[in-house]
């Protein structure tokens, strides 16, 4: 198990380099010069040269990358060109909001999704099954930002239960978290249902019945536990999806967060901020997949034993 974890951890290093090179080069292909937006009216060409130098934008791209990488690895992500403050501070300020939203959405999508998946598998082809699967399908197909706006319209504007925007309180977290969570719940419900149904037909389940175990014990202890495996795999993928959802949902509800920060930096061509937040989000996705792999290995004795 530990060898497996070590091997997977080491694999994160080259991935980080690939991602940072790609993000770095793409960002530097963005047309438009951030220096132009910094120069006030009446500034001369000499001012521009000086400022370009000050931000290190006059050097060649590989050199800029190495300088940036060295600083990045020592925890210096540079200065925001627009906000004039260290990018690290901006990330640290915005991160908790995104993490709160992501965790709340993750919890909602897993509990709701697994619950819906189990009841529709247990009551296959009944009314309950159809209703929960239509719900799940809607969860998958309704675009997150639109769902957010509609929920806002119903619960904030018409009913007045939740604030329209803002952050910090539990009340202001509920609507955004439900918005992101519902989409995830749909997919998880569908996967749980399918993998539960597949388990029902397995021969070892038949054997358990022959042994005289009750349906309840078989469903919970054997079917559900085995059916959970694909759900764990989804967990890792969902993390990326949830972060992607957070980007738009933070805008819909005007919440602070990494997504909001990334977008406003994109509009204003604030390279250092775009770069750092993209790498942050991307690494979060990769680490999510990594955690899911470890959980999967832990839950599946075949993988666990292979690395003993």
């Amino acid at each position: 198990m530990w060898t497996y974890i070590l091997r997977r951890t080491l694999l994160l290093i080259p991935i980080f380099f690939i991602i940072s090179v790609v993000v770095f080069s793409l960002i530097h292909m963005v047309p438009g010069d951030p220096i132009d937006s910094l120069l006030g009216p009446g500034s001369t060409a000499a001012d521009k040269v000086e400022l370009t130098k000050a931000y290190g934008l006059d050097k060649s791209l590989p050199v800029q990358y190495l300088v940036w990488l060295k600083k990045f690895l020592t925890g210096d992500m540079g200065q925001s060109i627009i906000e004039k403050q260290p990018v690290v501070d901006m990330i640290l300020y915005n991160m908790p909001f995104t993490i709160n939203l992501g965790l709340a959405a993750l919890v909602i999508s897993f509990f709701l999704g697994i619950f819906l998946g189990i009841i529709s598998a247990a009551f296959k082809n009944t009314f309950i099954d159809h209703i929960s699967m239509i719900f799940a399908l809607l969860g998958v197909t309704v675009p997150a930002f639109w769902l957010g706006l509609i929920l806002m319209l119903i619960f904030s504007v018409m009913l007045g239960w939740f604030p329209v925007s803002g952050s910090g309180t539990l009340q202001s977290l509920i609507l955004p978290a439900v918005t992101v969570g519902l989409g995830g719940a749909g997919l998880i419900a569908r996967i749980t249902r399918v993998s539960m149904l597949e388990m029902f037909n397995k021969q070892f389940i038949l054997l358990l019945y022959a042994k005289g175990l009750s349906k309840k014990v078989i469903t919970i202890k054997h079917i559900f536990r085995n059916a959970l495996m694909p759900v764990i795999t989804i967990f890792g993928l969902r993390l990326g999806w949830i972060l992607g959802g957070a980007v738009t949902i933070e805008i819909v509800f005007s919440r602070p967060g990494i997504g909001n920060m990334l977008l406003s930096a994109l509009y204003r061509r604030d390279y250092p901020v775009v770069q750092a937040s993209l790498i942050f989000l991307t690494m979060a996705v990769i680490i999510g997949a990594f955690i899911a792999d470890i959980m999967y290995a832990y839950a599946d004795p075949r993988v666990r034993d292979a690395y003993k």
Partner: protein
Amino acid sequence: MGVIGTALIVGLILVAIFAPMLEPYSFKEQNIELMNAPPSASHLLGTDEYGRDLLSRVIRGARISFVVGVLSVMISVLIGVVIGSIAGFYGGAIDLVLTTIADLTWSMPAILIALLLVAVIGAGLESVVVAIGLSYWAQYARLVRGQILSLKAAVYIEATKSMGASDFIILFKHLLPNSMSPVIVAATVGVGNAIVLEATLGFLGMGAQPPTPSWGAMMSSGTAYLFISPWVIIFPGLAMMLTVLGFNLFGDALIEIMDVKNKESN
């Protein structure tokens, strides 16, 4: 379910083709006296902040969504098929490199890739198509690679090889045609996803720019008037939801028809 899906897609295609004939008003005609008017007999879905007829704009938006969805999926599939078949067919180091890139791309939220690409190549409908196409190729590459890997070992491929067929013939005449069914299913659902991504980009102000009546751009400008004229948000969103639902139901039905799953396990 499949019937509903087919009906929704056929409906969308018909609306997209005959958009100019179906629009009760011009989609760009402004009417200052009728700004943010609620749905009524003369304007079935109401009007937006410039007094433009919302129904006409939703109809015109169907055309944009459909074209963007189909074109971007074509780009994704093309890239995916090329990369996936090279990786699956040649194996070895090429496979390792291509698979790593595909896996990395695939694990990224598409919206992040698309946002970054739109920032690089500029906003507007054409760049949105390219950006979406480049965001979704990895899933097709993975599918095609998997299919080719499993088909490569088949006896009939060995027979073809022993008859002296070239790599090119084997790949394009035998392997690829037989790996297409899961790709077609994925591409069907993919059109729905691409439409949502286009709308999300539009909503974030990074997609089609006003006055283009793209559903996302319409909703983006509608958010400012959410409390005054919610219909500007509700109807384009409903149209989009039905569209995506259609492609998903149709995809589900295709899976059953083509029996993709059984084919994969056999």
